[in-house]
């Protein structure tokens, strides 16, 4: 993807590169956390009758993760297509 991945692009110093990498990782962590919180709320019965996830909850979780991922991609495409609206 990057032509010269053994050296930094000109004008970007090391601290900046580390800062960007950190921001990128924070983004992924936040994506995962929001997805997990959202799917727990949508799929898991709040009465907590038992500590195990039942079959219905498990398949709901799988589908929820899949759909969340698709929504993430959909909005990502929309944002990169319309870079700088106005």
């Amino acid at each position: 993807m990057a032509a010269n991945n053994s050296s930094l692009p000109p004008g970007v110093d090391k601290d900046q590169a580390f800062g960007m990498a950190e921001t990128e990782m924070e983004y992924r962590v936040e994506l995962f956390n929001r997805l997990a919180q959202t799917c727990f709320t949508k799929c898991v019965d709040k009465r907590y009758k038992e500590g195990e996830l039942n079959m219905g909850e498990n398949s709901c979780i799988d589908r929820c993760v899949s759909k969340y991922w698709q929504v993430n991609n959909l909005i990502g495409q929309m944002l990169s297509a319309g870079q700088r609206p106005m």
Partner: protein
Amino acid sequence: MDKSMLAGLDGLPEEDKMRMATMIEQLQLRDSLRMYNSLVERCFNDCVDNFSRKSLQKQEESCVMRCAEKFLKHSMRVGMRFAELNQGAATSD
């Protein structure tokens, strides 16, 4: 709150202005990624409620698109109003 925080950095050497610019850039990148995450969460929450299938249905997809479009337009409008109020507050200082 205290507008003088930033003022304290005026008149500093070129090197510090560069450092400032880098910091602002990082904050903007971080903020836009957070906005993206919260937009996804909101539109998912409002548009997707049926988990009998694994893939997004057509009407869910279009709901998500309209939700995101509305949110972006909303953000731009809020940004304009916010800037006006900030300016008003600055001149009335």
